[in-house]
């Protein structure tokens, strides 16, 4: 069977599974549609939350980020998991006790203000829409690489599948498909990692293999990796960072952003009891950690594998570093190049030294090569380091970070079915997150905007219809943005986390932990956190990310106190808290019934199921 047929089989079978689940779990009421009837077991919900949370970025990009950045990118690991600690202790149980369907529900009721509700709706929609663009493009990449369809067709197929199970099944359909998607993606992620850890260290458990001895050289793997990358002019893989303030703030921004993202929070409304919400957060993190503890191993091993593929003599015990560097692999004869000097894929890969997987991926354009010094060999090193004494004229091989996970089974020479599994896993990661985000968007529109603010008399049937139409509309918008991604797609992740962390998270937390917080304080705080974060991001990345409109160049020298725009969400959250407390203490205290409401969310007693009122 050809690789294409195997990929088709795996992806097709996973789709059949998702559609089958959707038919079985049709939503019959708004309660089914928004919170899956409120009867999801905490472990099931934990698994669904893990799939909801782990997006194309976690599955495809994170190991590549770790491979290229080493220790310095550990913030992603800690930030995207540590957020669950604050979610479990500061938000989830109390919001579950509150017992409504959405995040703006809580903010609007707690701060007895439709203005607060509206600010929350806007924050939620902007954060979720920017986030969903990346999922659609991620699904498009996975489709076009593995199913040999065009990117456009890939995105349309992804949209159709999500439409089928999200529009008809609502939260109920999404929950059970996410459980299936979690199983697919975690198997797809860990199997190649286990094989590679075995090959490199003899230890089958990647998270231990990473800290074991590298079989071929006889020294610890990370020490070997440090030696190899420094020989090529890069910084030590495990090197410490100088700007600790920025690393702390970046990690904190990712944590509060994680805790404030509505599509994650609403998952905790689906469990039957307050105690279940607490357990469920723990289970979610267990399921997330299975991937997040493996990712650093995948990253470090992929970096070592990639480097020793180019410089085979660096793999074992190196006697003479210079000689090892000069005996890098050769490439095929190049007769034509493009304007930047890059060689067509079929020319440079046409040499027995070039491994099969590089041939496949060169065709996608994610690996590019140019022979700068015309020596017939490939040099891959830190282009800003000086290796002119070896006759090197610059880095010749550009490797896209996203390859690290997707090409992993091919690099390790694993059988074709593992590649098919990776294809299904990458698509599952993108689809499950997209569905969760789309539900958060559609419930904000149909429940908060239409039912609560515009037409409170709408019938249950009418609200369901509105929910399905807004879901369909959200999918069309996401598809459009996936097909025509704004040039700033990568930066928008900073925006999503900045908004969730600087506006929604502090408002939710103060709503629970401060009885004295009134509507004026909360609204002023949300706006201050939002505006300050947007100003800081736009100053360096351009107004609305339009290139050339940034007022200062985005370099560490220009950053205030060395704080990067990506790290500003944490500062925005602090500004939010400070402004909210200042304004609130200068104005009247909230009415008695609101103080009673705060009192009631603090105690699990009398929670009951999530209900509409």
């Amino acid at each position, binding site marked *: 069977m050809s690789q294409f047929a195997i990929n088709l089989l795996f992806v097709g079978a996973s789709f059949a599974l998702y559609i089958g689940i959707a038919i079985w779990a049709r939503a019959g009421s708004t309660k089914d549609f928004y919170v899956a009837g409120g009867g999801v077991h905490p472990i099931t919900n934990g698994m669904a939350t893990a799939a909801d949370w782990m997006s194309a970025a976690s599955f495809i990009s994170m190991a590549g980020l770790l491979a290229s950045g080493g220790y310095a990118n550990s913030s992603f690991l800690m930030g995207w998991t540590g957020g669950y600690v604050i979610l479990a*202790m500061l938000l989830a149980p109390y919001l579950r006790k509150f017992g409504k369907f959405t995040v703006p529900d809580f903010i609007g009721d707690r701060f007895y203000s439709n203005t607060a509700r509206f600010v929350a709706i806007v924050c939620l929609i902007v954060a979720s829409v920017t986030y969903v663009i990346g999922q659609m493009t991620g699904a498009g990449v996975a489709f076009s690489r593995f199913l040999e369809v065009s990117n456009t067709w890939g995105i349309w197929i992804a949209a159709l599948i999500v439409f089928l199970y999200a529009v008809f099944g609502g939260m109920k359909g999404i929950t059970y498909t996410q459980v299936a998607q979690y199983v697919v993606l975690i198997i797809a992620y860990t199997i190649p990692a286990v094989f590679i850890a075995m090959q490199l260290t003899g230890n089958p458990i990647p998270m231990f293999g990473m800290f074991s001895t590298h079989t071929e050289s006889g020294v610890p793997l990370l020490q070997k990796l440090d030696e190899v990358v420094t020989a090529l002019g890069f910084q030590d893989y*495990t090197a410490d960072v100088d700007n600790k303030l920025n690393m702390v703030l970046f990690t904190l921004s990712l944590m509060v952003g994680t805790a404030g993202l509505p599509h994650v929070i609403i998952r905790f409304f689906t469990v039957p009891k307050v105690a279940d919400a607490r357990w469920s957060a723990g289970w979610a993190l267990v399921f997330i950690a299975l991937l*997040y503890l493996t990712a650093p191993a995948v990253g470090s091993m992929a970096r070592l594998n990639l480097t020793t593929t180019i410089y085979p003599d660096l793999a074992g015990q190196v006697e003479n570093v210079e000689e090892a560097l000069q005996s890098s692999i050769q490439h095929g004869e190049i007769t034509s190049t493009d304007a930047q000097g890059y060689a067509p894929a079929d020319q440079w890969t046409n040499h027995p030294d070039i491994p099969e997987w590089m041939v496949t991926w060169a065709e996608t354009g994610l690996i590019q090569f140019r022979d700068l010094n015309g020596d017939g060999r490939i040099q891959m090193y830190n282009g800003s380091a000086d290796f002119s004494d070896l006759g090197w004229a610059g880095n010749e091989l550009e490797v896209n970070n996203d390859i690290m996970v997707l090409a992993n089974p091919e690099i390790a020479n694993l059988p074709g079915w593992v590649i098919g599994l990776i294809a299904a896993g990458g698509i599952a990661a993108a689809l499950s997150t997209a569905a969760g985000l789309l539900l958060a968007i559609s419930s904000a529109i149909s429940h908060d905007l239409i039912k609560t603010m515009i037409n409170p008399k709408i019938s249950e049937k009418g609200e369901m219809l509105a929910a399905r139409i807004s879901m369909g509309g959200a999918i069309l918008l996401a598809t459009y943005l996936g097909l025509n991604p704004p040039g700033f797609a990568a930066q928008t992740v900073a925006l999503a986390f900045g908004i969730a962390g600087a506006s929604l998270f502090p408002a939710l937390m103060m709503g629970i932990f401060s009885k004295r917080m009134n509507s004026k304080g909360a609204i002023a705080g949300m706006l201050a956190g939002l505006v300050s974060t947007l100003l800081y991001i736009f100053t360096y990345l351009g107004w609305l990310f339009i290139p050339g409109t940034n007022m200062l160049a985005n370099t560490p020298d220009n950053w205030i106190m060395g704080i990067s725009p990506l790290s500003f969400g944490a500062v925005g959250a602090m500004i939010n808290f400070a402004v909210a407390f200042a304004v609130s203490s200068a104005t009247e205290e909230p009415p008695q019934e609101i103080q009673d409401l705060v009192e009631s969310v603090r105690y699990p007693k009398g929670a009951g199921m999530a209900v509409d009122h």
Partner: protein
Amino acid sequence: MADDKSNAADYWKANVRLIFGCLAVWAFVSYGCAILFRPLLAGIPVGGTDLGFWFAQQGSILTFIVLIFFYAWRMNKLDQKFGLGE
């Protein structure tokens, strides 16, 4: 009613105290061991690197899991003790 109120207030105080304790550990492993105190832990080798690196890429995540389950277990006990469970 007065008893109910002071009972509930005690429950909330115990909850907040527990959260402070858990978040202190949360901050210590991630911002402390993994980032700020990494140079101090540089002398403790772990598989080819140092303890700070291990905390940044493995240890803090493992600690987070333990923290959430510990919190859930303690809170469920408190719910019962104060008679405020479901």
